[in-house]
């Protein structure tokens, strides 16, 4: 007690000294040093007291009664030349005080009020890094206090009322630091960066908002938190490397190790993570708002174009290849980023927005998903990256993705014979299908041996008996595949419990899906699925370009107005007359900022980190023309937030991308034109496919072709709104394209001219003329088709190839590129046949499903055709591709499972089954193997190298996983380091069986368990282990990359077959487990 008295006396002395300085009319540096020293001593006394007891003591009471903190703060404002120094000292004092306090100091107004005032004063002058840093620390402390005692919130608003409208200063101060991170942001002693501290503090407030709707409402309505977050993503995204520097052929996915080395990427990921966390823990209204901004402010205007740009900015001249390769690098990087984001996001609501973007977004009238699917075909790195992205998508066990990619097309059951539909659910339990797969394992016969078949059998027999142990480790045991298949299928089944339908051919029923979809071209968007009755007005409006322009005009004016003096009412009314119809129709209470609605770049204000106040007002002006009464029920009707909502969850089709509503005659015309275009599309596709087979042409051609198709379609769309067509295609050139025999170079140059000419030359044909032109064209194509189909020897018989092309009178197939008609999949023929049956068949097509071509959808079609090409694919493409197919096969939904794994299911003649494709590959591989002296040895070398590579990768990851990543993760749910199963694991685990076997061998070399060697292993082994010729192999045969590739392909092919067989076997026992798994799980309330 005595001690306390002394301390109080000491405090009085300090305060006296301080007051003496405060009374001076002029202060100098000495005074400042003196006063801060006394102030520090005083606060230290207070700190010691609050640190040692859990209730207010005399020193605190003295501070309160004398208003020491407040007095000091007010005085500090009167010395502007020392403001920064004084602020710094005060901040440090508060920081010290709050960090030690045993009880909630902030309930004392004499503590909290000066603190808030101090913080607010920092807002205007927080230019110094030092001030910023300590301000954030104190803010963080305050937020921790508020999270503990939410009643403090009242204080935050109350105290600030004397400074104009109620403001949540703590929150506004934190917002500018949301995206602060990276190298410039030096971590504090505790290793926590300022940005991280600010984000942590904000998350505490977010958590609070979950319980306190007032706060949520305040944040949504009065702060720019959501737009700053979302647009900050855009800003950070644009800072990301435009090119991912790697010469590594196998690179296709950004791993944690890779991205954590790029400061800008770490910064982006932290912000994305923060968004994820906010959506997860904040009040739903904040989450909803933020999601809208992320979609419209980041995904659509920023990420979209960056992924899409190669089709946009394709150089018109082929000489401009440098630019193309730059663009290509950017697209590759963007795709890899998107993949990384998808693997990092854990909050389903955020993931949903990303999926909405991938599955539904249309950029320049072409569905993003269609573009991504097409890119699988690209033979460069982009193809590999795109495959990686799809692997990630498939791996999400998401029904919507799988529906859009696969089940949408399989549900109509047009891919199977009518009589076979009831067999879709069949499950063969005797392992016949698995045996079938295993029977396809290739035997690679050496050229030398073919002459003497007895020799060969002897060789095989020898190796049956004396297995070469050194090679055993390269062979994945079938058991390892079975084990993997078991757990993968179980996991997939468990994950799919939340799906809405079993996809067994009955539910959803085969006619449940709107027929248009399955027969569509690549360009059909999912939005055609939705036909809404009450939105015709809006979509009408939106479908016309003129109206769009008006809208843009209006919004532009709006921006201009809000930038200078407020709202120019007259200007608005003028244009509003036209758009009111639609804007008001959806009785919105909220508009997107104009730049968002127009896909304009983000205004600089938003990107400037400290311009919050300015933007604040700007943003609000945008709202001014809204009805006030609407604002109050925002939370109740979240789906009607936006007038131009693209992701309005309740009215999906309520947007720009909805299908044009046309009157019926136009509609028919449109339909016919579309059919024509599809025909051309197919034709061009085939040409492209054919070109890829030659392996000589990069994706320039396909891009050009796409552009051409875009062009036609764009013209056709204009057709619907205007009566004359400005079709930009030169028909002479176009006809030339199809009627003449062209060499590849000629073809290219014509394409070049076609796309080049589009801007200058316009034909004034009407829609009808265009149509008849197209009709004629497609008829010609159809004739060629018919001839080539009826051609008897059109199977994979290369000898007949030449005679075939002479049988095509106006061959569209340039002989110089050695076109093999048999390379066209039968599917394409039939599509073509179907689509050229118009106009008579149009009615049929719309009324019944029966006439629709059998189809499995663009995704499966692309994957399958890529697999058919396996021998030409690179090692990495094949690893990933087989991985994707295996992953697809893990899904137990009968529609997909039967297509992939049931070889006895009879498919429509124009749909190739996986089994068929694999059979063809087998014979292809075996034929190729004959051309080498000792293919068996090559395969063995390939296995050895793959094995070494895998071990090296494993070691690399083991060592690198020990080093901690610089980013600090705080989220309770989502750890950015915990990406979803990376596809990299596929590369690593492809030979997991082998590595297991190797481990076993290491520990247990002497006593090898022969019972583990199955017959299956031996069969595949015997062909690889023919050793006699090893020494005779010319080394240079292996040096040829093409040869190497084929050898790798052979290894992967056999392993893939084992994997498929294992998956098939596992399905056969798990399907009957259904009820069991499901009963056990549904009894657990946490799972549903």
């Amino acid at each position, binding site marked *: 007690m005595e001690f306390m008295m002394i301390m109080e006396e000491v405090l009085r002395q300090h305060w006296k000294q301080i007051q003496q300085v405060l009374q001076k009319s002029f202060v100098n540096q000495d005074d400042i040093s003196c006063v801060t020293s006394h102030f520090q001593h005083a606060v230290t006394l207070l700190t010691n007291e609050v640190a040692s007891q859990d209730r207010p003591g005399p020193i605190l009471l003295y501070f309160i009664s004398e208003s020491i903190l407040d007095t000091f703060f007010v005085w500090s404002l009167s010395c502007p030349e020392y403001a920064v120094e004084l602020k710094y000292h005060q901040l440090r004092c508060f920081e010290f005080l709050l960090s030690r306090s045993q009880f909630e100091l902030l309930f004392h107004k004499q503590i909290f009020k000066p603190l808030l005032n101090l913080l607010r004063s920092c807002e205007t002058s927080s230019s110094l890094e030092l001030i910023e840093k300590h301000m954030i620390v104190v803010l963080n402390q305050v937020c921790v206090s508020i999270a503990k005692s939410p009643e403090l919130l009242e204080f935050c608003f109350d105290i600030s009322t004397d400074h104009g409208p109620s403001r949540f200063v703590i929150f506004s101060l934190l917002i500018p630091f949301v995206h602060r991170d990276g190298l410039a942001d030096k971590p504090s002693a505790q290793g926590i960066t300022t940005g991280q501290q600010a984000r942590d503090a904000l998350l505490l407030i977010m958590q609070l908002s979950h319980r306190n709707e007032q706060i949520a409402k305040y944040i949504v309505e009065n702060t720019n938190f959501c737009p700053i977050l979302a647009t900050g993503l855009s800003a950070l995204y644009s800072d990301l490397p435009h090119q991912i520097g790697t010469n590594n052929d196998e690179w296709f996915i950004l791993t944690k190790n890779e991205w954590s080395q790029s400061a800008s990427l770490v910064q982006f990921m932290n912000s994305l993570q923060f968004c994820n966390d906010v959506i997860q823990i904040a009040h739903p209204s904040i989450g909803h708002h933020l999601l809208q901004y992320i979609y419209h402010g980041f995904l659509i205007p920023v990420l979209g174009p960056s992924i899409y740009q190669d089709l946009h900015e394709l150089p018109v001249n082929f000489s401009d290849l440098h630019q193309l390769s730059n663009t290509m690098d950017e697209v590759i990087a963007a795709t890899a980023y998107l993949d990384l984001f998808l693997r990092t996001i854990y909050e389903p609501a955020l993931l*949903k927005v990303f999926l909405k973007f991938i599955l539904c977004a249309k950029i320049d009238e072409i569905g993003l998903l269609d573009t991504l699917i097409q890119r699988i075909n690209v033979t460069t790195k982009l193809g590999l990256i795109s495959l990686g992205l799809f692997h990630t998508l498939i791996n999400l066990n998401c029904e919507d993705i799988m529906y859009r990619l696969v089940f949408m097309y399989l549900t109509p059951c047009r891919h199977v014979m009518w009589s076979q539909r009831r067999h879709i659910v069949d499950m063969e339990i005797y392992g016949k299908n698995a045996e079938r797969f295993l029977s396809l394992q290739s035997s690679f016969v050496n050229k030398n041996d073919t002459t003497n078949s007895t020799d060969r059998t002897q060789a095989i027999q020898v190796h049956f008996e004396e297995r070469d142990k050194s090679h055993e480790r390269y062979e994945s045991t079938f058991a390892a595949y079975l084990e993997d298949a078991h757990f993968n299928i179980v996991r997939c089944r468990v994950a799919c419990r939340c799906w809405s339908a079993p996809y067994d051919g009955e539910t959803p029923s085969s006619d449940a899906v709107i027929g248009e979809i399955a027969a569509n071209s690549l360009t059909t968007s999912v939005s055609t699925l939705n036909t809404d009755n009450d939105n015709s007005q809006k979509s009408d409006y939106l479908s016309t370009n003129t109206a769009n322009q008006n809208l843009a005009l209006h919004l532009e004016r709006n921006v201009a107005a809000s930038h200078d003096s407020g709202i120019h009412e007259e200007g608005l009314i003028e244009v509003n007359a036209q758009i009111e119809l639609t804007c008001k129709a959806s009785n919105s209470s909220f508009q997107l900022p104009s730049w968002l609605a127009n896909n304009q770049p983000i205004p600089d204000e938003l990107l400037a980190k400290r311009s919050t106040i300015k933007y604040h007002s700007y943003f609000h002006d945008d709202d001014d023309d809204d009805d006030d009464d609407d604002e109050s029920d925002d939370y109740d009707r979240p789906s009607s937030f936006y007038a131009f909502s693209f992701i309005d969850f309740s009215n999906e089709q309520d947007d720009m991308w909805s299908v044009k509503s046309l009157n019926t005659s136009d509609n028919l015309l449109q339909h016919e034109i579309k059919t024509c275009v599809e025909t051309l599309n197919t034709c061009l596709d085939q040409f492209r496919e054919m070109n890829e087979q030659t392996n000589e042409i990069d994706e320039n051609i396909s891009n050009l072709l796409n552009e051409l198709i875009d062009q036609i379609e764009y013209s056709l769309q204009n057709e619907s709104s205007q009566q004359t067509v400005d079709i930009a295609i030169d028909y002479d050139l176009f006809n030339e394209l199809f009627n003449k025999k062209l060499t590849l170079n000629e073809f290219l140059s014509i394409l070049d001219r076609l796309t080049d000419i589009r801007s200058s030359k316009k034909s004034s044909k009407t829609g009808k003329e265009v149509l008849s032109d197209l009709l004629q064209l497609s008829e010609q194509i159809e004739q060629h088709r018919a001839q080539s189909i009826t051609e008897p020897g059109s199977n994979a018989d290369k000898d007949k190839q030449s005679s075939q092309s002479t049988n095509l009178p106006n061959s569209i197939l340039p002989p110089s590129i050695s076109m093999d008609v048999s390379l066209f999949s039968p599917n394409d023929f039939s599509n073509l046949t179907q689509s050229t049956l118009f106009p008579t068949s149009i009615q049929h097509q719309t009324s019944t499903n029966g006439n629709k071509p059998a189809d499995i959808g663009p995704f499966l079609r692309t994957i399958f055709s890529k697999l058919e090409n396996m021998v030409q694919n690179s090692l990495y493409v094949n690893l990933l591709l087989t991985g994707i197919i295996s992953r697809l096969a893990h899904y137990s939904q009968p529609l997909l499972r039967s297509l992939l794994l049931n070889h006895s299911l009879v498919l429509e003649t124009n749909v190739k089954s996986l089994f068929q494709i694999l059979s063809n590959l087998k014979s292809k591989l075996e034929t190729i193997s004959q051309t080498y002296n000792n293919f068996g040895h090559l395969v063995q070398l390939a296995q050895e190298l793959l094995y070494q590579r895998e071990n090296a990768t494993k070691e690399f990851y083991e060592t690198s996983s020990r080093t901690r990543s610089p980013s600090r993760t705080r989220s309770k749910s989502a750890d950015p380091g915990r990406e979803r199963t990376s596809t990299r694991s596929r590369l690593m685990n492809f030979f997991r069986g082998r590595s297991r076997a190797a481990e076993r061998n290491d520990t247990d070399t002497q006593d090898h368990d022969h019972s583990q060697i199955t017959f299956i292993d031996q069969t595949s082994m015997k062909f690889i282990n023919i050793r006699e010729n090893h020494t005779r192999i010319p080394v240079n045969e292996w040096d040829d990359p093409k040869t190497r590739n084929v050898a790798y392909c052979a290894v992967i092919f056999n392993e893939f077959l084992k994997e498929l067989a294992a998956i098939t076997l596992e399905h056969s026992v798990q399907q009957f487990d259904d009820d069991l798994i499901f009963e056990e799980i549904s009894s657990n309330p946490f799972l549903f």
Partner: protein
Amino acid sequence: MAMEKNEYALDYVLQAEYNLLRKQFIPGIIVIPSGKSNLIWNGVHFISQGPYEGGVFRFSIVIPNTFPDGDCPRVLFLSSMFHPQVDPKTGELDIKRYFPVWKRNGHHLWQVLRYIRRIFQKIETTNPINIEAAHLYEQDPETFLSKVSESVSQSKDNLYTSDPSISDDPHAILFTPWSDKLQTVRQLLLSGKKEAFDQIHGLSWMKPGVHQILAREDTLPSHQN
């Protein structure tokens, strides 16, 4: 090139057969593959009505390693069994009368269990293996019943004694007198959940019946706080 049967294929066939069997729910019969060989399934049949009422008969199903393409599985009763269809010396049930030729796809092991159950419900005497039993059943039901009750009581007497032939089988079905202690274990087993699955979540925003992607507003309950 047709592949020969391999051990995995047989394992999977048997596992599929067993899964089918579990789905069937055949009252009064429990069966579990032996721990020593998948080709031997140990079973117990509890009979609750008819002349064999009260009997607890152990049996084995011996599956040929050519299954499902070769012979029928054999069913052997392990205690003495007085029944027209059961060989009194070997205890083997005459299964061929019901499955003259084993047909893959048509025949399944659960049907064998059904058949085992049936022979005690409806006793057939045509073409008997045990002619004496068939004769007594037709001519002298009382003697038949007394012989049957010998089998029944013998089966009961041996209930808790472990059969030497199965004592080293980890999957052997053993009986012990009622014990309250085991009840807690039973509760535990019944309430058990597959916790390994708790962390596995799929995603779906599909509206059931509408077939429209990303149509549902809500997320999965499991993802919410």
